[in-house]
């Protein structure tokens, strides 16, 4: 179990993050932006979370208005999760 976690934690992290964004209503939560917490006012990623949430609920126009890369982010992260979990066999040929 420990080895499984050590190996897979990145993909689990992205999976959990995507699920939380998809299913947890974010309107009432404080901002999850770490840059904002530190004090940077606009980190160019602001609104990504809300944008992704809108995209998950198929409100694509709204998603694009909140942050243009929300839909792109979802695809890239899904791709990353999949890539991390396809382990090629070590013996080829």
């Amino acid at each position, binding site marked *: 179990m420990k080895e499984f976690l050590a190996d897979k934690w*990145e993909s689990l*992290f992205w999976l959990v*993050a995507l699920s939380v964004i998809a299913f947890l209503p974010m309107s009432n939560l404080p901002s*999850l*932006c*770490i*840059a*904002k917490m*530190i004090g*940077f006012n606009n*980190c*160019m*990623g*602001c609104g*990504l*979370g809300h944008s992704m949430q809108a995209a998950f609920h198929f409100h694509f126009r709204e998603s694009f208005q909140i*942050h243009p*890369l929300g839909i*792109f*982010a979802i*695809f*890239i992260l899904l*791709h*990353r999760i999949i890539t991390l979990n396809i382990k*090629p066999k*070590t*013996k*080829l*040929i």
Partner: protein
Amino acid sequence: MNQNQLFATLPEADPVEVNYLQSISTNWTEDQKRNFMIAYSAQRTKPSIILITGLVGGLLGVAGIHRFIMGQIGMGILYLLTGGLCLVGTIIDAVNHKKLASEYNMSNARKIMMQMGLGA
């Protein structure tokens, strides 16, 4: 043994990487190993490079350079345009830098193996 010494000489070699290289090369000749090493070390990235480009770049507003280095263009663009996913991605990658480098190096090793026609 010669083989152990060969792979362990890679700078910042990590045990998973060395293990992997030893396991794929058990049936290779000395010449094949040497040729492989030349190609492999030319394309290899060190974990410290991933850490530095990822973390320092991220903190300076140019997140994602480490992803470009590893050929992950989509992730790189995403990081670049979103401040490293609001710093979250930057931090995750900093914590994970060794595994990221290892993963990239091992997939390069596979590619080189196939290009050179070396079975395991």
